[in-house]
């Protein structure tokens, strides 16, 4: 498996995508830090970029890479290697290269401009999102053979998680406002990885303005500390489950 990670890693680095990715993040973060004098505001803007942009980029990057390297995968699979190693090799190389890009593009500027501990929290959040959405990208690309269709589905998933979800939840709770909704809200917040990452960050940074509806009730229910650990646990689930399903599907796929 180490060999396979090595090949995929080399291939990804060579594709120059990752360099564009890093430079783009770097431009964003440097610009935001430079132009907004207020530290808190800069952090919030960066956080928004992480919440919206990173999932989208991870999914598109992951699935375009998968579709373009189907030949490589097929070539590897005719050799004496386990299918799982090929899957994990690809998954980890994709996620790790993006993580490096993310660290170089966003976390380093934060550290340079003395954001201290907050930059570490942002790194944790970003890393979770990268791993989670790379898993989703692979899952969907493995299930859908047609590239255009696959990417269409990915973008829909992203819109759902990153944009529509909070709105839908808010609408539901507004509509059912007469009922006790505390538990439903908690459950709703765990059903969206972007939401729960945001909640986790907010519990750490204590910026209640950014909570969103689900996040606010999450805090009320669990309190800051326990809430943080619960959200961490749920994020792990979001990371592991889609990737595991993707691996299973990959093991049974016909090439």
């Amino acid at each position, binding site marked *: 498996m180490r060999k396979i990670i090595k090949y995929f890693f080399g291939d990804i680095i060579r594709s120059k995508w990752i360099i564009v990715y890093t430079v783009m993040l770097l431009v964003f973060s440097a610009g935001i830090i430079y132009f907004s004098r207020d530290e808190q505001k800069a952090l919030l803007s960066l956080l928004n970029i992480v919440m919206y942009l990173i999932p989208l980029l991870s999914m598109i990057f992951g699935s375009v890479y998968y579709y373009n390297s189907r030949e490589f995968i097929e070539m590897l699979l005719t050799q*004496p290697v386990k299918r799982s190693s090929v899957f994990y090799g690809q998954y980890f190389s994709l996620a790790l290269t993006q993580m490096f890009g993310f660290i170089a593009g966003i976390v380093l500027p934060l550290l340079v401009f003395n954001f201290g501990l907050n930059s570490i929290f942002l790194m944790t959040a970003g890393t979770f999102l990268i791993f989670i959405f790379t898993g989703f990208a692979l899952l969907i690309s493995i299930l859908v053979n047609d590239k255009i269709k696959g990417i269409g589905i990915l973008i829909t998933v992203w819109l759902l998680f990153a944009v529509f979800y909070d709105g839908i939840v808010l609408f539901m709770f507004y509509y059912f406002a007469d009922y006790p909704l505390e538990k439903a809200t908690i459950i709703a917040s765990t059903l969206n990885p972007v939401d729960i990452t945001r909640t986790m960050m907010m519990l750490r940074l204590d910026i209640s303005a950014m909570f969103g509806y689900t996040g606010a009730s999450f805090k009320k229910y669990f309190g800051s500390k326990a809430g943080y650990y619960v959200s961490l646990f749920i994020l792990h689930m979001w990371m592991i489950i889609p990737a595991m399903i993707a691996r299973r599907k990959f093991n049974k796929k016909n090439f």
Partner: protein
Amino acid sequence: MIRIENLEKSYGKSFTLNVDRLEFGKGSVVTLMGPNGSGKTTLLKSILGLVIPEKGTITVNGENISGQCKYRNSICYMPQSSPYPPNLKVKEIISITKDIRKKQDNYDYELFELFGMPNILEKRSGALSQGTRQRLSASLAFMFGSDIIVLDEPTAGLDPYSSGVLKTKILKVKKEGKLILLTTHIVNEVSELSDRLVFMLDGRIKVDREAFRSVNENGKEFREMVSKLFKENGVAQNN
């Protein structure tokens, strides 16, 4: 060497591969023939583990291959379309393949050199022509001296000289006691190369018999049989 029992694999509603029993022994060349979409490649890919059958067992050298990967150390495969990652150089494709397979003391570079591969080591595989890629994948298939060599339409896209070289190599390797499984549409090739002919149709084995040894003696009879098979089943013979 290879034994297939009650194999079943379906794609949608229209196609099912269905093989009750099939065995291939060493020191022989077996040719799979049949119209397009008759299941030849699916059968080969199931042996390689690229296609996962719904039912049935395939054993290679006595080992059930389901979920296994080590057995592929004794199989080399030359795919139909030679899909190599376009970004990799020829030498990288070779070194990756060597790196992944079990370590060997000596490699068989005969075909590799006859096909002029040493001259194009630095080229990216995306820059190679279809025929050159075929030659690369043929060279790779014979490089490891594995017991079983699976060739999916090896001569399609090769120039006459290269396909002659490849055929000579196939016969040579057969004498060393290896099993060569190939698919082809070219009738002459069957009589030139193979010891056994398996004719497939709609995912089933229609004819399984000894092939005809020489073109001169039995070529005519053999051609007639093949064209009859194609005609009977409503497929126009195009070779």
